[in-house]
């Protein structure tokens, strides 16, 4: 890693000089290799690929002309490890360490393209050369994620070179607090953490409170299971979040900020820590920032494993070192927050949008999106989808475009069933609503929710009752237990749903679920309980048939609920590989050799589905 040149920047002029110098320095490199080092790619062992590049470049004495970067998440996690080779912008995917010498040889030195490593469009089978041409990226609009694939998150110079901290310089040098708030108000930026509250308005309220001590907080708790956009921003472009917080702090009148980051994200914790340290070294955090007399420092607070701590009052309690139980609002954090002082909390993505809005202007930002939801939104597109990954799309795009054009549809030719947005607070959206534009109010209108941006795609093999049960189980484990309706009510909803999944439910159970859902929604203390019934209510609304099949016919149409299914092996499809025989925990499968197809002994089968998940030939069938 190259040590940053950014040290003790004393004025906007010095920042600008540094940026120009870094640009000139960068011209020295003829080729730039950006290998994705996000958590997804790390799981594919991208570190080995990076090390291989490093060794290979050293061996060939290319380190002065070729710059190797380990960047943050590019988004296309499905295809990792990934690398982009500039200036041509060549996009290689699923790279193995063995490929590296060849890449250096042929592509970097020889300028050739290695066809095998290019992304292949699954339908047309065309090989695609550039990242931006891959359909997954083509329909995206990357404001927040723009720099993720270019810069090295652990080197502040990279961020400065692409114009980083220029927005801060503009704000502290030339704008009043009110002017900053006006810009953010005019941009129409709404909070990306779920609620969609107007960011500028919240800043204004916090600013208008009395007292000298105020705080800003970045909510990076991201507990929504299946959502990881905040993680990728913190990992891949931490300085954009810091710059956003600096600008917010200036507008609000805060001299101290906290970043509350989820403990399950070790790389994000590390990278934001490095970023804070480097920003301090560069004097972009601390006292008298850019010589303007503005002071701001940031502390990092690691979460300790509690979903409810994403809720702002619980988050504050946790930062203060107390139990993460929410408290009733009002008072809102803007009025009485951290250590009893006015506190402005925004989500990671909200903060990361701010420098862009300042640099490019409110009108530019408001030019994207719908009348009431401006800009872009990052979603984590996961589940039963071909192109899993992070997508940043303009508000107003339809769900269909996201799922099919960007996501490439459902794997294995299965049929789309639903998409779940908003995590445990959100809802299930059926096929008939796929043309819905993505917008805070539209999604809320159909009983779902933008949430923080999880978008989980489900196909015909996903049971909606099981999904509702899954979320209730999640919430049962994550409820803080403070208030009666959430603590006791969720437990009972889970109880009923489990009964239904086990085939022991009756029709009254559905009415009972609805009554409980209404009661919990109305009476719970915080939004965890308040929105907890959403997955149940929306699945009941759009997939009632499936509930009825479970309670009346004792049947799970999706073939998921183990108590209601029978597994058998289609002898015609079985190739006798014997894999199912090996995985069966109760030795219920016999045969499974070339001559004798596998066969399940129903008396021994516990319907665990292990054979179904394992069979490479789809020979196991479920009824």
């Amino acid at each position: 890693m190259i040590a940053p040149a950014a040290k003790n920047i004393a004025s906007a002029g010095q920042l600008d000089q540094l940026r120009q110098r870094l640009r000139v320095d960068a011209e020295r490199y003829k080729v730039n290799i950006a290998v994705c080092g996000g958590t997804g790619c790390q799981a594919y062992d991208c570190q080995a690929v990076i090390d291989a590049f490093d060794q290979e470049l050293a061996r060939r004495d290319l380190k002065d002309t070729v710059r190797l970067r380990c960047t943050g998440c590019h988004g296309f996690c499905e295809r990792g490890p990934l690398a982009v080779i500039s200036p041509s912008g060549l996009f290689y995917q699923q790279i193995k360490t063995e490929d590296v010498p060849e890449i250096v040889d042929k592509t970097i030195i020889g300028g050739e393209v290695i066809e095998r490593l290019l992304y292949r469009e699954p339908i047309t089978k065309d090989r695609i050369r550039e990242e931006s041409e891959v359909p997954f990226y083509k329909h995206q609009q990357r404001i927040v994620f723009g720099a993720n694939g270019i810069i090295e998150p652990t080197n502040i110079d990279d961020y400065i070179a692409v114009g980083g901290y220029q927005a801060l310089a503009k704000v502290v040098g030339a704008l009043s607090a009110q002017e900053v708030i006006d810009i953010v108000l005019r941009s129409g930026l709404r909070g990306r953490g779920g609620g969609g509250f107007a960011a500028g308005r919240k800043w204004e309220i916090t600013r208008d409170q009395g007292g000298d001590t105020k705080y800003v907080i970045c909510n990076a708790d991201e507990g929504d299971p299946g959502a990881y956009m905040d993680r990728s921003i913190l990992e891949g472009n931490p300085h954009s979040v810091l710059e956003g917080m600096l600008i917010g702090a200036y507008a609000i009148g805060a001299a101290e900020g906290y970043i509350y980051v989820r403990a399950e994200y070790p790389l994000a914790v590390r990278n934001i820590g490095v970023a804070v340290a480097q920003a301090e070294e560069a004097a972009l955090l601390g006292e008298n920032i850019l010589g303007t007399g503005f002071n701001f420092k940031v502390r990092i607070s690691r979460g300790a494993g509690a979903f409810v701590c994403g809720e702002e009052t619980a988050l504050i309690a946790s930062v203060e070192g107390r139990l993460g139980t929410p408290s009733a609002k009002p008072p809102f954090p803007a009025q009485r927050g951290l250590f009893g002082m006015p506190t402005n909390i925004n989500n990671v993505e909200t903060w990361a949008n701010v420098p862009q809005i300042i640099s490019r202007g409110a009108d530019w930002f408001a030019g994207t999106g719908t009348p009431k939801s401006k800009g872009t939104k990052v979603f984590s597109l996961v589940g039963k989808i071909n192109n899993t990954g992070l997508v940043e799309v303009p508000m107003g795009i339809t769900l269909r475009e996201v799922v099919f054009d960007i996501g490439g549809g459902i794997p294995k030719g299965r049929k789309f069933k639903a998409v779940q947005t908003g995590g445990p607070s959100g809802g299930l959206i059926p096929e008939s609503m796929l043309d819905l534009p993505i917008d805070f109010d539209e999604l809320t209108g159909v009983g779902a929710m933008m949430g923080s941006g999880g978008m989980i795609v489900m196909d015909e093999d996903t049971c909606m009752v099981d999904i509702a049960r899954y979320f209730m189980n999640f919430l049962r484990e994550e409820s803080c237990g403070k208030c009666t309706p959430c603590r006791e009510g969720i437990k009972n909803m889970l109880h009923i749903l489990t009964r239904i999944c086990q085939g022991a439910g009756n029709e009254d159970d559905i009415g009972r679920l609805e009554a409980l859902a209404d009661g919990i929604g109305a009476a719970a203390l915080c939004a965890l309980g308040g929105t907890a019934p959403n997955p149940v209510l929306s699945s009941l609304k759009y997939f009632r048939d499936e509930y009825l099949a479970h309670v009346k016919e004792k049947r799970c149409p999706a073939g998921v609920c183990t108590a209601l299914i029978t597994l058998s092996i289609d002898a015609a499809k079985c190739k006798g590989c014997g894999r199912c025989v090996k995985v069966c925990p109760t030795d219920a499968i016999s045969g499974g050799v070339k001559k004798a197809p596998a066969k399940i002994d129903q008396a021994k089968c516990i319907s665990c589905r292990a054979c179904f998940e394992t069979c490479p030939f789809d020979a196991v069938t479920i009824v």
Partner: protein
Amino acid sequence: MGVDLEPVGRLCESHVSNRTSLVMLLQETQDKYGYLPREVLKQITREIDVPLARLYGLATFYRSFTLTPRGKHELCVCTGTACHVRGAPTVLQHLQRRLGVSPGETTEDGLFTLVTVNCLGACALGPLLVVDGKYHGKITVGEADELLSSLAEAAQQNPQ
């Protein structure tokens, strides 16, 4: 039970001088000991003026804290939504059956601790099994079995 209480003083000192929160103090304590031993919590109440009930409340509220030592190997099954729809329950149930423990528990021989996590942000690889910090994506019951067997075997050969 011989738990070395020596480091507690330093941990508490840095907590006081850096004005960190109690949650952070417990995190650092757990980083040091691997878990939160009872004697250590009691020692903390003696070093800094905070009731044991507060520490115990925090240690049992937040899931990343544990009051008992972990096994030699940690098997962590992601039960986030993306992994769930891709078959994580089958893997988890299988591991539970095979090890005879529920999530959060350690096998009697102290070899394996089974835990679950709600999304590690590597949903593209779901279902995900993390063994001692190493990610195993798109895991199947068969592969999980093999991993387990090779760890158990290694432990037998090298009982340290």
